[in-house]
């Protein structure tokens, strides 16, 4: 294998694929990226056995072939090369090494044979549809903060994607929860997604996909079965295993009859919560909301540090009430509000509250209160 490629194209591609490679690997081959050259293009493949990313990029191929080289080392080298450099990758020697040449630099990297690289399963993915990248970004951004990191509840370690109907409209929903808060966002159901199984898209793959589609504007081709999903777009293919578990019946924890409504300017609210929470203890981050007609008093107390109080004008009718929340959870949600106002639907200080955008954004949030 021998090829020449422009440094910035190589860097972008390696940047995409190398992040799936774990820093510490007990299986040496998983530290490597598979490089396969042929037909005017070179493809780079990396995997952690759960997720695989393949990205192709145009290159000047002098000799087709394939090898594998340490992903992070290769990326670091390319990152440090001068902008505009032409990079030659040469594995044509019989010493089992990859020679990288650029300008006056020359690196020799030890390789592992292509045949050692795990073959990625190409099993049947019966459900296929297309969805705009920005809708996928929307689903991810509005839910990923609520994904549980608790390994014992592995079935909450991802975004639950499924299709359903709401008020007669076919929708696709993304739901994430860690048991203390829940985020649910919906988009119109993409054509072809009807009948797809509900799937749990794991956290790491969510992060990788989000990075890859950050500035991609077209449509994503999605294919899935009940244990794998694949996204293809541009020159990239990301495939991931799905979490094998049952997502809990989340609809029963979404309150539907909370009787009190508080509406407040989302940005002012977020800033006030952020200020007041400076005082609350690191572990609990609790803030108290004392709500009265026209007025919200935010407060936090820490036995070690002191206390903080801030008032905000709100729209609220009814008897006053008090409720406590984790300030980080409030900020996560407030950061996703698109319209001017954030709306809380409350019942009492012990019951879950519903939070939504002042104008319908298709996203709702459920928050469990804290004792304060």
């Amino acid at each position, binding site marked *: 294998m021998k090829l020449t490629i422009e440094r910035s194209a190589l860097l972008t591609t390696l940047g995409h694929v190398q992040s799936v490679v774990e820093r510490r690997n007990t299986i040496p081959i998983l530290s490597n990226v598979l490089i396969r050259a042929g037909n005017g293009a070179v493809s780079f493949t990396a995997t952690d056995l759960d997720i695989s990313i393949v990205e192709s990029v145009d290159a000047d191929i002098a000799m087709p072939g394939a090898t594998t080289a340490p992903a992070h080392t290769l990326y670091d080298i390319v990152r440090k090369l001068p902008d505009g450099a032409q990079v030659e990758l040469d594995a044509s020697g019989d010493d089992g090494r990859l020679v990288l040449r650029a300008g006056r630099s020359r690196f020799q990297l030890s390789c592992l044979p292509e045949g050692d690289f795990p073959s990625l399963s190409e099993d049947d993915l019966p459900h296929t549809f297309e969805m705009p990248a920005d809708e996928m970004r929307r689903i991810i951004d509005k839910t990923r903060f609520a994904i549980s990191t*608790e390994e014992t509840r592995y079935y909450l370690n991802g975004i639950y994607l499924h299709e359903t109907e709401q008020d007669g409209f076919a929708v696709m929903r993304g739901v994430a*929860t860690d*048991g*203390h808060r*829940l985020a649910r966002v919906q988009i119109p159901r993409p054509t072809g997604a009807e009948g797809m199984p509900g799937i749990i898209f794991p956290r790491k793959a969510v992060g990788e996909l989000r990075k890859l589609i950050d500035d991609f504007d077209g449509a994503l081709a999605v294919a899935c079965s009940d244990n794998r999903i694949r996204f293809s777009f541009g020159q990239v293919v990301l495939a991931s295993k799905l979490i094998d578990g049952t997502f809990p019946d989340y609809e029963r924890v979404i309150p539907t009859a909370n009787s009190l409504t508080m509406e407040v300017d989302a940005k002012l609210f977020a800033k006030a919560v952020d200020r007041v929470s400076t005082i609350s203890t690191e572990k609990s981050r609790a803030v108290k909301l004392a709500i009265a007609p026209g007025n919200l008093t935010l407060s936090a107390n820490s036995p070690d540090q002191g206390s903080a109080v801030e008032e905000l004008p709100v729209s609220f009718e009814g008897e006053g009430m008090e409720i406590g929340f984790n300030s980080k959870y409030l900020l996560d949600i407030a950061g996703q509000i698109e319209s001017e106002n954030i709306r809380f639907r409350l019942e009492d200080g012990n019951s879950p509250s519903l939070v939504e955008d002042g104008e319908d954004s298709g996203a709702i949030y459920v928050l*469990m209160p804290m004792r304060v």
Partner: protein
Amino acid sequence: MADTEPTDTAYLCRDCLHLWHGEARRECPRCHEPRIVSHPELTRLHLAHVDCDAFFAAIEKRDDPSLAHRPVIIGGGRRGVVATACYIARQYGIRSAMPMFRARRLCPDAVVIKPDIEKYRREGRRIRLIFESFTPAVEPLSIDEAFLDLGGTERYHHRSPAQSLCALARQVEEEIGITISVGLSYNKSLAKMASDLDKPRGFACIGRQEARSFLAPRPVGDIWGVGKASEKTLHREGIRTIGDLQQISEEELFRRFGQMGHRLHAFARGIDERPVKTARETKSISAETTFETDLRRYDELCRALWPLSETVARRLRQNDLCGRTVTLKLKTASFQSLTRARTLEDPTQLAEYIFRAASSLLKAEADGTPYRLIGVGVSHLDSGDKADPGGLFDRDRQRIRIREQVLEEIRERFGRDAIATGRAISGKRRGPTPPKKD
């Protein structure tokens, strides 16, 4: 005391801190107040035990002045026990840990107040901060008492430890609005005994000179580390007072009581070298038991695990703590120890969640190996108000909490064996319920 008192006895006015030597006076020559403390070693003693007087009741009286001259009992509902009785209520014979119904019978006029632990904890913290402004060597024993070592603070405060302690007592009275009693000596055991001598609002000293004679008439149970069991052993041997111990040589005590003999010998002579340990946070709370015959079966081991989980939960509650990591400990018949740990999603204070985590860890280990010991512990501790927040998918937690509270109240009222859950009862049909998937 009088016969050993040399002429250079020091006198200290507890109100204005005026210190003089030599001549005894009925009142302070400077401020004319009568609260004088005197002791030959007064300026040399540095180790204090400081204890709030009827703490919970004092706080309630402070917050409601109409209670000032009435008997006040702090305790839980009709079924509970007395947590604290104020000094007026104590005149009726009411004591801490007495069942509430008996207290009410002794004094039907008493004002009964439900404990507001959160408030007491807050005040306890404020008091501790005052302690810590006098010396960094503060070892809290509970919410309202602590050992303080003021050795070496003379230069900093420009006064003796005794003077500093009077200033401390005055500051607590002024800033918190309650009184404390101070015991001052040269070691922890004697300081603790001293603080009991002159309650409330007291100040008592025990010096090196009088230590042996002070200890001689006291019961052996007063010695640190002599609990009910050791006390019984000593009584069987005809040893009832510390004076009895003082008559016996160290070799003899060692021969008869082993390692404990050394401690008995030292303590009986007023020797206690334990240092004041500054607030070292509790890292974990655990309980374990050794079986009479080795156990191998999962259900048998679970049956032993459940009461241990209850014990750990109770200790967490008593210390106002909760924890996130549950550790299972096992020792095989061949004395190999192993531990397995699991971190929970939410910190807990409940036996149910401790048991669920520990029993699921046990499942993998109960493979037929004979075990001689099982234990369970909780670490990653946090304050009790963080316990069991309850999640969106976990609304049972509230129900379980109430169930455990009720069990605990029944046990406080009728004794520990009064009630047990099915898990603790052996029998073919009533095996332990398998842990539910969380």
